[in-house]
């Protein structure tokens, strides 16, 4: 599973990093999120899905 945060949509709500702190990081200066790695670590797919479901802006993009 691949993951990315759409920078045009992310507004820094931080819910993705709350749901999946190993998959997402937040920029120091504004809290906007990015995926630490493009590839979701094996076994963490559910956390990535939960992050995508929780995002108020629907900015988390998952792909197989």
């Amino acid at each position, binding site marked *: 599973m691949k993951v990315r945060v759409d920078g045009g949509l992310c507004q*820094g709500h931080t819910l993705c990093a709350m749901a999946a702190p190993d998959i997402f990081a937040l920029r120091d200066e504004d809290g906007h999120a990015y995926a630490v790695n493009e590839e979701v670590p094996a076994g963490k797919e559910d956390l990535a899905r939960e992050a995508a479901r929780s995002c*108020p802006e629907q900015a988390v993009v998952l792909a197989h």
Partner: protein
Amino acid sequence: MSIDEAQTSDEERKKHRISLDRHSPRYRLEFERLSDELHAKCPVAWNETHGGYWFASGNKELFDIARRADVLSNDNDVNGTRRGYRGISIPHVSNPERRTRGGFLEMDPPEQRHYRQALNPYLSPAAVERWKPVIEELTRACLDEVIETGRIDFVDDLANIVPAVFTLAMLGMPLKDWEVYCEPTHASVYTPPDSPDYPRVQELSMRMGMHMMRTIHDIRANPRPGLINELLNAEINGYRPDDTEILGVVMLLIGGGFDTTTALTAHSLEWLSEHPGERERLSRERETLLNSATEEFLRFFTPAQGDGRTISQDCEINGTRFKEGDRLWLSWAMANRDEKVFEDPHHIHLDRTGNRHSSFGLGIHRCIGSNVARATFKIMLTAVLDRMPDYVCDKEGAVHYDTTGVINGMKKLPATFTPGRRLGAGLEETIEKLQRVCDEQRLAEPVTVRKARARLDG
């Protein structure tokens, strides 16, 4: 198009009509039934109250509209030099003493974006993380003031104080001045113009405004780190804001930082008192539950109930035709209760997943203080759970705002608990100590300048 045709077209556009006064007790008392009804019948409706405005309550509908910065404006054109738009309050605040622009929340890009870029490094998660020892110490002192008595008013003794003092710390203002700001900031939200208390609140608000202006001048003359200093030096889209514009921004930060966090904390503590089993579970399982519980309290209580916008160009969204100049209300509160997105929406589930609530707004105006609010709330809540685990709120003494057209807040929340022992100095002494800590460690610098966490020892 003839006038008749235009009228027919307007009738057709506004075919789903409601008459809902958000500033009436009915809106507060029948909130859940009204939400369900609007979601089922007209998730976007024309509300005939307050001069007429669109009312978006459905989650999907609100989601599709709120993020359309290309067709929405937040502008409050107080001097009538642009298009005459009236900002984010519905009804418009027409009191001449309060006719100032509400900072960057009543601006559009690019100015709005410049302000946020300047202030984000003071308010980001990494920036707030540095402050946690200060917030914890303030909370400790507030609880110590009452811990031996077995009685507390969670609003007056805790939830009003911590956000107020901490907000002043981030602004770079003297912490001891918090009382000048606390009462008028809360009271002006819940005191309507026809209240006998209104003149007193107006007076306090005027004093606060003058005090703020003096503080801005002081910081201009003697720079000290913090949000105000940033505003004084920021270049916003090629200009330097004047003192009136800066005052509007600081008032926005204070208004946004105080009453909302107080409202969230009080409501959550009241709910936990009514659900002692859930309270015990939250305390016990806080490692896994505190985040989801916080988001669930945010969703359920939605401290800032909604925001107004003006349609900036004719457009059609999901079948509704909006016209330039139309007013619009984005009901974050009702969107948060839409069963199409939130199962069992009118109940609190501390472990709710997929909780993509809109309590901090959606789109480019997302609450810039959201990370401050979460951190302050969590610290106050867990301190109460640790030190007053058996508190019981007094139902008779709890006072909710009469109306919740703007903020879903509380004025009083008295409670009793088994007395405990003090852990340290009282509030006044603690504030003096924290002032020294702020000054010596320059805590109010942005995270881009200062990354280290506050140290309270020594």
